[in-house]
């Protein structure tokens, strides 16, 4: 059985030409850009024996960074899902002065060098910063704590949810809401039973993107985190630290764990997203 028949078992004439070319190109591109560099990580970590590998990736200090990195990233993505949705809603549904300006501001975390964001946030939230000095009397410390990590991750994740939800929200007919209202649903019921399920696939995509970005984020976090071992150290920093000590194998070992874990979580979110998209009848 040739490759062509393998990928195209029914042997129907396709309307769109170039299936083989497109698939081949996609696979080559993906291999060159993503798979080969990533496999290098696995190869490098393979220089370690099983027990060495396990010792590195399960040391208490490293495990503490997993908890912070993945925990804070999930939380930040969740916060962005809620407030990003609200932001997108405000931008789509209402018109107010300065709307275009706010719309443009949303993308700023994309464009800003992450170090700039980190310095700005640290200056704001440090004990003597504008916001930090207001929170200090309340006993809330943001900079140099896990909370600071969360703030930085929320900051960089904002555009993802807004930009994925916005187009779907724009396409949403107001007729759906009118239909729900004419059937006796109140605003809360209309939102939870009609709008949210329709927006859910896009919202999940935005959540996944914000999460993925947050897990890998380095620049903006290290400034505000303070990088206290066991408290406010993130996994990417552990990897950098190990690299700086020329511990390439150790760095890649941690990277492998991070990679596998991230991949599994993204896979799960994508499956969830596919499932909810199917439920909204967009699978046809």
């Amino acid at each position, binding site marked *: 059985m040739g490759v062509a028949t393998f990928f195209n078992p029914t042997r129907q004439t396709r309307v769109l030409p170039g299936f083989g070319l497109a698939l081949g190109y996609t696979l080559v591109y993906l291999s060159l850009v993503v798979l080969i560099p990533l496999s290098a990580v696995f190869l490098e970590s393979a220089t370690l024996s099983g027990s060495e590998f396990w010792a590195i990736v399960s040391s208490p200090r490293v495990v503490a960074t997993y908890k912070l990195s993945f925990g804070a990233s999930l939380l930040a993505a969740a916060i962005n899902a809620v407030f990003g949705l609200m932001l997108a809603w405000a931008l789509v549904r209402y018109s107010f002065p300065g709307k275009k300006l706010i719309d443009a501001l949303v993308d700023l975390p994309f464009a800003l060098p992450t170090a700039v964001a980190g310095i700005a946030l640290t200056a704001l939230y440090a004990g003597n910063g504008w916001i930090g000095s207001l929170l200090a009397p309340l006993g809330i410390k943001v900079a140099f704590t896990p909370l600071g990590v969360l703030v930085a991750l929320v900051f960089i994740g904002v555009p993802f949810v807004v930009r994925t939800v916005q187009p779907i929200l724009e396409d949403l*007919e107001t*007729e*759906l809401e*009118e*239909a*729900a*209202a*004419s*059937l*006796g*649903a*109140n605003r809360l*019921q209309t939102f939870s*039973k*009609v709008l949210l*399920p*329709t927006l859910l696939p896009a919202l999940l995509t935005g959540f996944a993107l914000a999460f993925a970005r947050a897990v890998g984020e380095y620049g903006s976090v290290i400034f505000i985190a303070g990088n206290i071992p066991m408290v406010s150290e993130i996994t990417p920093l552990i990897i950098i630290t190990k690299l700086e000590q020329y511990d390439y194998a150790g760095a890649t070992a941690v990277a492998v764990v991070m990679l596998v874990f991230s991949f599994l979580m993204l896979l799960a979110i994508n499956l969830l997203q596919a499932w*909810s998209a199917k*439920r*909204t*009848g*967009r699978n*046809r």
Partner: protein
Amino acid sequence: MSIQVKEIHKQFGEFVALDQVSLDFPTGALTALLGPSGCGKTTLLRVIAGLETADSGRVILEGEDASDTHVRQRRVGFVFQHYALFRHMTVLENVAFGLRVKPRRERPDDAEIRRRVHRLLDLVQLDALAERFPAQLSGGQRQRVALARALAVEPRVLLLDEPFGALDAQVRKELRRWLRRLHDELQVTSIFVTHDQEEALEVADRVVLMNRGRVEQVDTPAEVYEAPATPFVYGFLGAVNVFHGRIEGPHLRVGEATLPHEQTQVIHGAEAVAFSRPHELRIVTDPDTPHGVAAVVERVLIFGADVRVELDSLPGAAVRGEPAHYEVVMPRAQVDALALTRGQRVRLVPSQIRVFPSQAA
């Protein structure tokens, strides 16, 4: 359940959508709001539903003033042109929606909801598709689901906004007949909006003709077709031939021709416009006939028992600079006897014309 609207006025910026509209919709009747796009018919329907608020005027449902009642409380069933089905719900859940969102003490239990939904789906002949999603249905099926969904809450009135507007001709025709039968069965007071005169005349008990935010005529389908009250109605309902001319006593002078008329309410010497349906014109091949308007045969379209003959006015006889077009429908046998050829000069003799003063046209 009767519906009344009183002196409804609605403006969008400078555009007057509804200009002091007052109407009475009798209980149990199926009424069509008919008019060209932009005439205010959809706005009126939405004001009745409570989806739009009028600038002034009142909506009275069942004798009580509902002007300030929210659409949630009005208990009106609304069917949208583009169905507005909830695409993440099955057909069954779509229809059940109105029942499921009721406050707990009014909500029927799950078994009762299912029983009612299945009864409604039976009514719209879609019970077999209860577990499908809207994306898996055809346009006609979707609109029937939308109708079942609107009926599930037992609305006091049913409002349909261009319900068949997004469907192809064949399905439209079928659904029209089906809607009429359904209405006869349920007897719920219904209003539907359409720009399709055939649809309005075929389905409705009464037709409300609207133009530029005003009501032009309210009557039975037969009456609006046979006795149009205004030039607009005449022109809007079905094909029509128009003659521009001047009143000269019992005649209308159209260029060199004179047409007798029976109108008494027009002033001698006034500019006037006359209407005649295609089947009310007779073609006379003898060019020396003293009656009728001169015309040139342009095309003879033969399909079925009736033949449509399209004609142009003579060159030079153009009214207001543009040549007039005429249309005549007659039985096939008559056309065969006349043996018309393209470019042949004939005269058109109306058996009946209706004359309106010109400024109203």
